[in-house]
């Protein structure tokens, strides 16, 4: 057993987990506070990636492209909320699902119109290129290590904001009793727009970091959206802590499953069988995990208490 | 008393830091009408919800007709003869009043995995439903969409749906909630006709209703039963008067 390979895959799992967390945090907040099912969250992730590529081309500076992409995604998020989604909060979930589905179609086409359907190439910035020696004989890509660090930093930031600041208090209160918060005179509309925009920015951050690793193409948001939904279901809707735990677990299970399930199967069944069953089982792994969690805890691991 | 129809021991339920039910004991004999009263927040509706099976208690035992039903879900208890009406009207608004009651009849008329014959054509469902509507005074309103009925009529429909399931025990949660004087009086008349034929556990705020109907009264405060006995005894009970700040428990 090549333990270095296991460690490397664990790190990859953590990196995927952290990216899932960035998406899940925004999405679960929007679910929990506004009771809004936002399927278009993946579109914001996609926009983050595309904006980063575009701004890099325009300014030539990686740092500038990151900042601009974040801002742009934030603005788009808030615009979408104000223009299209605001009227839907009072409606039932089916309306949310359909409307945001419509947005997905729209944004995918918009991106295809602007940048074409072919995958774009986003390169790892030179400053973050190369490898770092984490353990003796284990070299890990600097870029991925940075993603892990950024993700953990954001998690820490969110923890501080949610538990130590006034905004965080409003968010927690809103998650458990929306009407009460409104009744207390808080400007609910502004709070919602801010929360939505914040979530959009987080998704955009995930997207722009993902660009160099995964392909940048129309529809990239939907791929990751499903995994994010699994994360939220496992973690519990409305809970940031659940989002973090769920994200890391899903990221690990998915990555380790894809890396090791086939070879592990091959030790017990024929190589041919492992060859076809392995990838299939690996792709099912996170859903089986979700089913198992739901069987014992239908509300997820850390559901935010609702009134 | 002889084996009580409803026997509750040590019922407990908490929601986070709030203890809604704090060790409730209750016995109801067959044919009795027991009223459960208490100030707001005493935990009366939570108690009803646990008795009907809509809420699972944290601890305690509920026995109905000699059988331990604590772990049984609401539909199973309904099939055993336990019916509930809701404090906040809970009906099928898009369906007609008759359809509402017919559904209650249907629930106890065999299974519903029937796919061909229209349910509206089944006399075995419609006739009993019509009879119950008559019984509660809605005989003429059967074809009206339930959502457009007046508030008082909807409360009557609530009772009708409970009655249509041919229950032994009726759990009535504030049956006259939101009703005017005339409507309340009519409801009391109706409930009087049910006394003796059904066992009734009645949660109410309206003291006139309580004294008109109850054989015994249990008083709940902060999740506990602090007194139980005949209406007159309860009226005089100093602890009860204190719980209600004196003024409210008066003739």
């Amino acid at each position: 057993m090549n333990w270095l390979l296991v460690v490397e895959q664990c790190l990859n799992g953590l990196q995927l987990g952290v990216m899932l967390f960035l998406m899940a945090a925004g999405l679960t907040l929007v679910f929990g506070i506004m009771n809004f099912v936002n399927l278009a969250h993946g579109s914001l992730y996609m926009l983050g990636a595309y904006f980063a590529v575009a701004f890099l081309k325009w300014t030539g500076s990686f740092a500038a492209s990151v900042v601009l992409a974040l801002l742009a995604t934030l603005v788009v998020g808030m615009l979408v909320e104000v223009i299209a989604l605001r009227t839907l909060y009072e409606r039932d979930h089916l309306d949310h699902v359909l409307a945001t589905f419509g947005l997905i179609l729209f944004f995918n086409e918009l991106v295809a119109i602007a940048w074409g359907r072919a995958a774009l190439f986003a390169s790892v910035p030179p400053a973050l290129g190369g490898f770092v020696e984490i353990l003796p004989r284990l070299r890990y890509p600097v870029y991925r290590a940075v993603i892990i660090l950024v993700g953990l930093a954001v998690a820490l930031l969110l923890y501080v904001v949610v538990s130590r600041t006034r905004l965080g208090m409003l968010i927690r209160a809103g998650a458990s009793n929306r009407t009460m918060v409104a009744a207390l005179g808080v400007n609910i509309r502004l709070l919602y727009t801010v929360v939505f925009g914040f979530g959009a920015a987080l998704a955009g951050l995930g997207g722009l970091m993902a660009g160099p690793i995964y392909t940048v193409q129309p529809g990239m948001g939907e791929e990751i959206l499903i995994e994010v939904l699994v994360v939220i279901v496992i973690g519990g809707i409305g809970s940031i802590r659940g989002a973090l735990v769920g994200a890391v677990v899903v990221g690990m299970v998915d990555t380790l499953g894809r890396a090791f399930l086939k070879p592990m199967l091959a030790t017990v069944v024929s190589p041919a069988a492992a060859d076809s069953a392995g990838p299939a089982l690996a792709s099912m792994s996170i859903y089986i995990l979700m089913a198992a969690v739901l069987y014992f805890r239908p509300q997820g691991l850390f559901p935010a208490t609702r009134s | 008393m002889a084996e009580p129809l409803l026997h509750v021991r040590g019922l407990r339920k908490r929601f986070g830091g709030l203890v809604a039910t704090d060790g409730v004991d209750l016995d109801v004999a067959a044919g009795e009408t027991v009223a459960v009263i208490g100030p707001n927040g005493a935990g009366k509706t939570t108690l009803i919800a646990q008795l009907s099976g809509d809420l699972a208690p944290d601890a305690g035992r509920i026995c109905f007709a000699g059988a331990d039903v604590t772990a049984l879900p609401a539909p199973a208890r309904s099939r055993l003869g336990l019916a509930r009406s809701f404090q906040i009207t809970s009906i099928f608004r898009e369906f007609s009043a008759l359809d509402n009651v017919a559904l209650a009849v249907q629930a106890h008329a065999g299974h519903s995995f029937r796919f061909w014959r229209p349910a509206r054509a089944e006399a075995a469902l419609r006739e009993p439903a019509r009879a119950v509507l008559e019984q509660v005074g809605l005989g003429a309103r059967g074809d009206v969409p339930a959502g457009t009925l007046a508030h008082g009529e909807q409360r009557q429909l609530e009772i009708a749906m409970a009655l249509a399931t041919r229950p032994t025990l009726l759990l009535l949660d504030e049956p006259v909630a939101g009703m005017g004087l005339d409507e309340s009086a009519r409801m009391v008349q109706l409930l009087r006709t049910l006394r003796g034929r059904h066992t009734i556990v009645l949660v109410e705020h309206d003291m006139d209703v309580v004294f008109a109907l109850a054989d015994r009264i249990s008083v709940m405060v902060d999740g506990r039963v602090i007194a139980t006995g005949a209406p007159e005894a309860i009226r005089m009970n100093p602890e009860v008067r204190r719980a209600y700040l004196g003024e409210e428990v008066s003739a």
Partner: protein
Amino acid sequence: MARRRRALAMLAALAALAAIPLVAGLVNQPFYLDLFRRIMIFAIAAVSLDIILGYGGMVSFGHAAYLGIGAYAVAIPALHGVHSAWVQWPLAMALSGLAALAIGAISLRTSGVYFIMITLAFAQMLYYVGISIEPWGGDDGMRLARRSQLGGPLDLGDPHVFYYVVLAILAVLLLVGDRVIQARFGTVIRAVKSNEPRMRAIGFSTLRYKLAAFVLAGAVGGLAGALLANQTEYLTPSYMHWTRSGDIMVMVILGGMGTLAGPVLGAAAFLLLENVLSAWTVHWQAILGPLLVLVVLYARGGLWGLLPGGASRDG
């Protein structure tokens, strides 16, 4: 009365559909035959979804998975020389029904937002499984070796015969669906949508009825998938992609959910719109997207609700 209006509308629609092959022959455009056959197949899928979505209130976002299973249930036996429709199509329905049973047994224990996301996730799981199984084409999909054999004069290779077979299935489905909605079972499903806690309070074990409806809808979806495989003579796992589920859901809503006839209208409107818009611009989805948002915001009763007679539904 809503029922009579719907019955008349369905008869009119079926008659119109029956006339299409004649019209197509007259103007020498066999393409219309193909297009309307495709519309009818998706109408079957949409009607099956309407049972659980429109009447049952279960927002299942994974319905395309059942079409996919049905399609593979035709293509895989065909690959191994089994071409009889009398084997393939019941198999399609059985397998889809089983999948619906498994997915429903887990998903229906939840509700609301969780339910939507879980049905979405499980359906997508089937898509990923489909991609990863190489012997069945993997990502590229597989061709249908030969159309299903019904036997005798019913040769699906003849476009007209195939058209009328699909029409017959749609007609039977609408008829049976109407009876089911009015029967005890349909009444329970509709009442559960209206007020599930009340249903449980009066003595219905609602889970078993919801699950049964879920399985029935899945099975009919499987039949639609079997027909679709025959229609395109080619299938890929993308048939099961969740965006396909979204398309079917749009058809139901666009047409008018909870009406049985509405989804037929919706399927026609959706596919005709797609046909017209895509001839105009390759980026037609950029128009369809916002259009969908507008429909959701302002025309919740769908096309059916816009027809004269108001939006009265089954009570």
